């Protein structure tokens, strides 16, 4: 039965770390965005898009957390008896998106802030500026993929 503790730790890590990363990333980009809008309010929508880009890791963390919660039966109310080994498996499966989500969201935030600099100086290059943060996100997507495959692959 105590395996559920490990499973919940894993879920908590996925949601918390990825969410923290996104919060920091969005904050970094938001500060840069606010600076641009203070000079030129017409760029609001463009910089807002860039600010939101590092927000996805938090969603990915939530995604994995939600799938794992469904897996261990906490959503439907009936607790499934989970062995320690299975609990640890779920914990391990949650780690990729937890760690990569945290690190990539922060770095994506920095890249997004730099891209907001592009929009400030050359608004017509908005399309390209959007690509740089999206590059960073690739690695969060890869981690998400492994986490999803692992969580859904575990046989309880």
């Amino acid at each position, binding site marked *: 039965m105590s395996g559920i503790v490990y499973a919940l730790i894993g879920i908590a890590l996925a949601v918390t770390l990825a969410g923290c990363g996104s919060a920091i990333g969005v904050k970094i980009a938001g500060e840069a965005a606010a600076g641009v809008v203070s000079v030129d309010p017409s760029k609001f929508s463009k910089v807002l898009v860039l600010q939101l880009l590092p927000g*996805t890791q938090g969603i*990915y963390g939530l995604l994995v957390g939600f*799938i794992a919660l469904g897996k261990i039966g906490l*959503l439907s109310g009936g607790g499934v008896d989970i062995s320690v080994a299975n609990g640890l498996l779920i914990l391990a499966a949650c780690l990729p998106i937890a760690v990569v989500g945290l690190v990539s969201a922060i770095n994506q935030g920095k890249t997004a802030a730099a891209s907001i600099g592009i929009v400030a100086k050359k608004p017509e290059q908005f399309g390209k500026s959007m690509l740089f943060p999206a590059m960073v996100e690739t690695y969060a997507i890869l981690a998400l993929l492994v986490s999803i495959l692992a969580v*859904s692959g575990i046989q309880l």
Partner: protein
Amino acid sequence: MAVCKMQRMNIFGLQEDRKAILERLQAWGVLEVNIPETGDGLATMDTTSSRQRYERRAQTLQQALEVLDRYAPEHKSLFATLAGKDQIGKDDYTEVCTRRHEIVAAAQQVLNREKEIGEHKAAISRLENQLEGLEPWMSLDVPMNFRGTASTSLFLGTIPGSWTQETLMEAIGAATPELTAQDVTILSIGRDYAYIAVLCLRDDAAKLEEALRSIGFARPSQLSDKTPADAQADLLAQRAGEEQKIADLEAALREQGGSRRDFQVLSDYFRIRADKYEVLGQLPQSSRTFLVSGYVPADQTKKLAGDLTDHYRAAVEIEELPEDEEAPVLLQNNHVGKMSEGIVKTFALPHSGEIDPSFFTTIFYIFFFGLMLSDAAYGAIISIACAFALLKFPRMGQNMKHSLQLFFWCGLSTVFWGVMFGGFFGDAVNVVSRTFFGHEITLKPVWFAPLEDPTKMLVYSMLFGMIHLYTGLLLKGYMCLRRKDFVGFIFDVVCWLLMLTGLILMLLPTEIFYGISQMRFNFSPALVQASKIMAIVGAAGILLMSARDKKNPLLRLALGAYDLYNITGWLSDALSYSRLLALGLATGVIAQVFNQMGSMFGGGVLGAILFTVVFVVGHVLNLAINLLGAYVHTCRLQYVEFYGKFYEGGGREFQPFHQQTNYVEIKEEI
């Protein structure tokens, strides 16, 4: 899907037709002025001062419009930006232009009135400072400059610090113990100063003043001959006067709001004139003739040349562009291609000799966008919103129109994939039926639910990705053939196709692939053999021939091996399409989270109300965030993975000499 062919048009005209011809060209708007080097007695004219004069007037009108926007704001709907520019008939336009002096004077008056308002506001803030300065003296009932009567002296002033009647009396008493007949009043106590009035006998005045000075007494700087109450009333009256003046000016400005349209049209008129003079300044001219030269799309040259020679005495000559001349790029597409011209332009326009990828971009954009969002309800919302905007505002800007058309189709694609994967506001059908109607209705996916079988979806994502990438490689092959670069076609395209296809065919029957996908491929031995040969032939071709311009055989092999290493690039490109799975799941799962949250309040009326609130807020949020994700990542798949295979870009946009206006569009029959 094409880059429009450009031709050079040279127009030789007489000086007397110069302005008329330029205006005609500007109305046509199909010629980009580009004057080649000329010599031989032709000189350009300096038009800077006329141009600046028109720009200044356009500027004045623009500023006047901004002022009017502040004082007489126009009621604009939220979607005003979609509505496009107003159209104005030629006659109306000419009528406004004939009143231009009057209109510029009115605009100047608007600016002057605004300046006056600024001055009155400054006056008010001056008055308010004075009022504030009077405040501490208000309990005084003699004029501020009152110095005493025949036998008494009055000291009005401030002393620093905090005082009370007693401490002040003590201090004065300590400084001049012999004086006894003074009356000390503290009028008010401010933060840093006490405001006091001290009355004494005239004979004692000098001594008292000395005593007061020793504790820091200072007379006030402004002395009026009125009591503070009177002075305050005076100032208030003045302030009311200034406020009335501001109100009058504002009312006058509001009345001028009716001239807004005139200002807009005329500012566009001056903008057009300024552009004309800018072009005029570039034209080589002799005393009797002038020359205009520039790029014109090939399908327009005949019509334009005919029009010019019909109306004016001008010689028009059309020439083909030499091979090495980089012509400006104008994309020319059918309806499908047009939709993603904006997306192509955001990346880069094709340079000369490249194909225009718009058509393929549109097809794949719509396909991948739908896969990433994959929720029927969200797709329907997007399509309906786009269709509504397109029907409601038929004259919106071209770029906006094409983008909305693209997203209309993206929405339909989303509906399609939503039905395939069984997403309708996530699992709203199940949750609503279970919570409110007691028995669960399941919306069955037509194909399969990715959440239940993510590996299957992953494999299909890669498959769609490989189709995308192969299309890119084939387009590269098409460009090689068009350039008649057959060697390049064989070794840069066919060899890669052979090797990749061979490798994929080798991978499919393996245990590793079965382990991932649970899909068993049993190839005949002949096919297995063929796949090996394909891979080896392809790899050998790349190894030996990819650096064919290098003479040194060792260097050539080394570079060939390095090119072969690009296979890792293909691997990472293919893996990149896993975002189709990830983003598709993200939409569905977050929608489920919100549905779950909504259903936690249980059934019944209250439950239904709370469910609706959570449902609306949650799904709006989810739609917004995933719309952004689908947009960004579909763009990325086009720009990085797809264009990376064949497209460089770097062309310069075709910028014709036309009537560039901010507010109105002039209808002109040509």
